[in-house]
């Protein structure tokens, strides 16, 4: 019988079509993430994870849409293992991640939004793409003078280990040619060429960020979350981008104290609020440890703006002005969930500050964290509309 089966085997190792289209898909994923950063930066799952951990980021724009049925309004057929009964619960249907953002179907019959997998580091790189420390000045001596050796010159004398063989041979050929002999040979001391180097000392811009966090009783879950989220990204950003940035962590209610990083991120206390205590402490630390000649100083403060009273507000205003004299910029973030509270807050007090180096931001929702990062860490060539909101 003629038609049978044949078996062959080829070398497929050079075949690359799948990986090429995969790369294109990954590009689109990154574009989609860039377009959704506002939403993604506020995700809780991200700020609680390590750098190399893969997080799932919902990107809704990447699925190719098509005409399809609404799975939530449609019966479907399934198969059990022999013992299913009417009324059996097969699974949770609620995977709504952002209520009020349109319908999202459950996780069971299909995936409504496409989930891209990306490491926190990759994500951070996208978030930080355009961020920088504002008003940064080259200051003082480098803490670790980073020396850079560059071979920049060629000389006739030097150490044999730095002999530039190519140039030496060239010289030899030239000399032979000039003498009419031509060719290569008979290298003399005159032919020798040596590479020499210079040391470059790169000037570092030393910077210290004084991160202040309101831990008073009026800071609810949302306020705490936003503060942590913002500082998470800020710390990560500073450590990724700058070698020489120090971060000082302060918490305050009616009293302020310096804490370590872990305490800073986890602390929840109660009590009243006296913001001036934090600013005073920041000022003391700046004066003692970080002379302005050597340091760019960046105080940042997050609060719900609910301060002890008008007297303390005025004291804060005064301290902010003093801090600004020593600092490159001062960042203040006021968290008002849903933007519902009255304007009789700290922000209202700061409205009068006209120095563009005072950067005030009001945060009313999770999606505002990313714009806040952008506002604090952008070039700031133009005077900021400080506390205008």
């Amino acid at each position: 019988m003629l038609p049978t089966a044949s078996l062959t085997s080829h070398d497929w190792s050079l075949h690359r079509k799948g990986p090429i289209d995969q790369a294109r898909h990954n590009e689109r994923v990154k574009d989609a993430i860039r377009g959704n950063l506002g939403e993604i930066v506020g995700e809780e799952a991200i700020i609680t994870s390590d750098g190399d951990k893969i997080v799932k980021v919902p990107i809704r724009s990447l699925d190719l849409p098509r005409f399809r049925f609404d799975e939530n309004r449609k019966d479907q057929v399934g198969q059990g293992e022999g013992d299913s009964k009417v009324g059996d619960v097969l699974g949770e249907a609620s995977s709504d991640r952002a209520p009020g953002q349109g319908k999202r179907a459950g996780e069971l019959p299909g995936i409504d939004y496409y989930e891209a997998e990306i490491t926190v580091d990759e994500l951070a790189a996208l978030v930080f793409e355009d961020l920088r420390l504002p008003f940064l000045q080259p200051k003082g001596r480098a803490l670790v003078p980073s020396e850079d050796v560059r071979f920049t010159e060629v000389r006739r004398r030097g150490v044999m280990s730095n002999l530039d063989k190519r140039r030496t041979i060239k010289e030899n050929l030239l000399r032979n040619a000039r003498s009419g002999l031509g060719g290569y040979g008979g290298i003399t001391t005159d032919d020798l060429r040596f590479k020499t180097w210079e040391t470059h000392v790169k000037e570092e811009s030393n910077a210290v960020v004084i991160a202040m966090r309101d831990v008073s009783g009026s800071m609810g879950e949302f306020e705490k979350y936003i503060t942590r989220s913002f500082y998470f990204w800020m710390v990560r950003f500073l450590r990724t981008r700058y070698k020489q940035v120090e971060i000082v962590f302060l918490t305050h209610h009616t009293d302020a104290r310096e804490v370590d990083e872990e305490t800073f991120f986890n602390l929840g206390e109660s009590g009243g609020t006296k913001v001036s205590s934090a600013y005073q402490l920041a000022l003391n630390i700046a004066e003692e440890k970080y002379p302005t000649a050597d340091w760019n100083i960046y105080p940042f403060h997050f609060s719900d703006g609910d301060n002890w009273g008008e007297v303390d507000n005025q004291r804060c205003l005064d301290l902010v002005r003093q801090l600004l004299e020593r600092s490159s910029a001062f960042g203040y973030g006021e968290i008002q969930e849903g933007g519902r509270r009255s304007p009789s807050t700290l922000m209202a007090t700061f409205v009068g500050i006209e120095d563009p180096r005072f950067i005030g931001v009001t945060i009313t929702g999770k999606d505002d964290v990313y714009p806040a990062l952008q506002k604090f860490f952008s070039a700031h060539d133009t005077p900021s509309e400080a506390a205008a909101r």
Partner: protein
Amino acid sequence: MSATEVQQLESRMAEIHALAVGFGLDPYAVHFELVPATMMYEFGAYGIPGRFSHWTHGRAYQQIKTMYDYGLSKIYELVINTDPAYAFLLENNSVLQNSLVAAHVLAHVDFFKKNIYFGRTNRGMLETVSIHAERMRRYEFEHGRETVEGLLDAVLSIQEHVESPPVASRAERAPDPRDPTPARPENVHRVGPYDDLVYIGATSRPEAPPPETRFPAEPEKDLLRFLADHAPDLEDWERDVILMVRAEQRYFAPQMQTKIMNEGWASYWHLRIMRELDLPEQDYLEFARLHSGVLAPGGRGINPYYVGLKIFEDIERRWDEPPTEGEDDHVTPRPGMSRGRAKVFEVRELDDDSSFLRNYLTEELVKDLDLYVYRREHDRWVVAEKNWEIVRDSILASMTNFGQPYIIVQDGDYRGSRELYLKHCFEGHELDLEYGEKTLRFVRRLWGRPVHLETVRDGDRTVLSCADIALRTQVSGG
């Protein structure tokens, strides 16, 4: 696989082929190719090797690869409906695994060759997709990658909306390898080349017949063809891209339409063929383990291998029993076969999944297979129905039009300004409006003028409209 193993597999495959033919299967010749896992995921992602580039293929590739890398799922085999057929086996599988796959593949190829829904498929598709890919690459050079990708995004979002190839008549079922691509229907009123001469001297020529009151004259189901033929502003290469996608979609349609039958048929035969082989006990155990792995009801969907196999076996059992008075159970006898066996061969030739389930999914099977209807109740998915007729009807409903909403072109000259009016033929299931709006924007991109889609929401007629690509879609009741 080592050289010895390849030799072993080759001789095993000859044996399997002889057994298959002895059982009455009639496959095309099959070229088996041993490939590394990476190639298997790639072919799985593209459906057929050498297809055009698109990021959705890249995404599928990544998903399949991830599933494989994590050991969650593995593609054992990929077979292509061509003449001769091509099948790909994993090179690092054991001889036994690949023997099972070869038996499975031969039954698939028999199905491709014999089932009437495949009668008009292009058996030279492997070359066709390469030619398409080449052409699309050329368009990328000429018009830019982004442009072609943008167009493909739009076309692929509605690729399901084509007319399936008609079932071949018996006469046509003789192998005709090349796809008789339907000619583009002429919609323009044709004026004969000599009409001018005929009417010389006449004071007035007969007017062209009045334009048809409806355009298209009949509602058109083939959205891709309609756009390729009638979208006012598309360039020729864009129309070509639409038609290429359409041709490939139509090639895959019968496979989607017979998924349960095709996998059931292949499982039915790999089981019977493997049983005939003289296997050492150890191999037999491995075979049993593999077979039960393939058939395990997995997740909450239906396992087509399992359901298909059980129905075929049930048909054979029932038709082997003496016929009951009055029952319509005629079957054309086949030489050397029992009634039951002849019946399953007949079913594999004449049915698709819809008729297969409608005719042969019995009350007992629904119970044995533990099929149920489930739906969303508040925040949970709950088993809602176990009544066999309701279950069967739900499956059938979910298969209508490949489980896609049935959408037709109602009017290609809506409001007299060449706007496009689509209609979702509502059969009780509502559209996902969010996706509907987004898809409509793609249709807008292709049609070049405002587009509308009529559907039903909460019992009321609703029209989605997209006037401009940049604008959000408007929803209006009425």
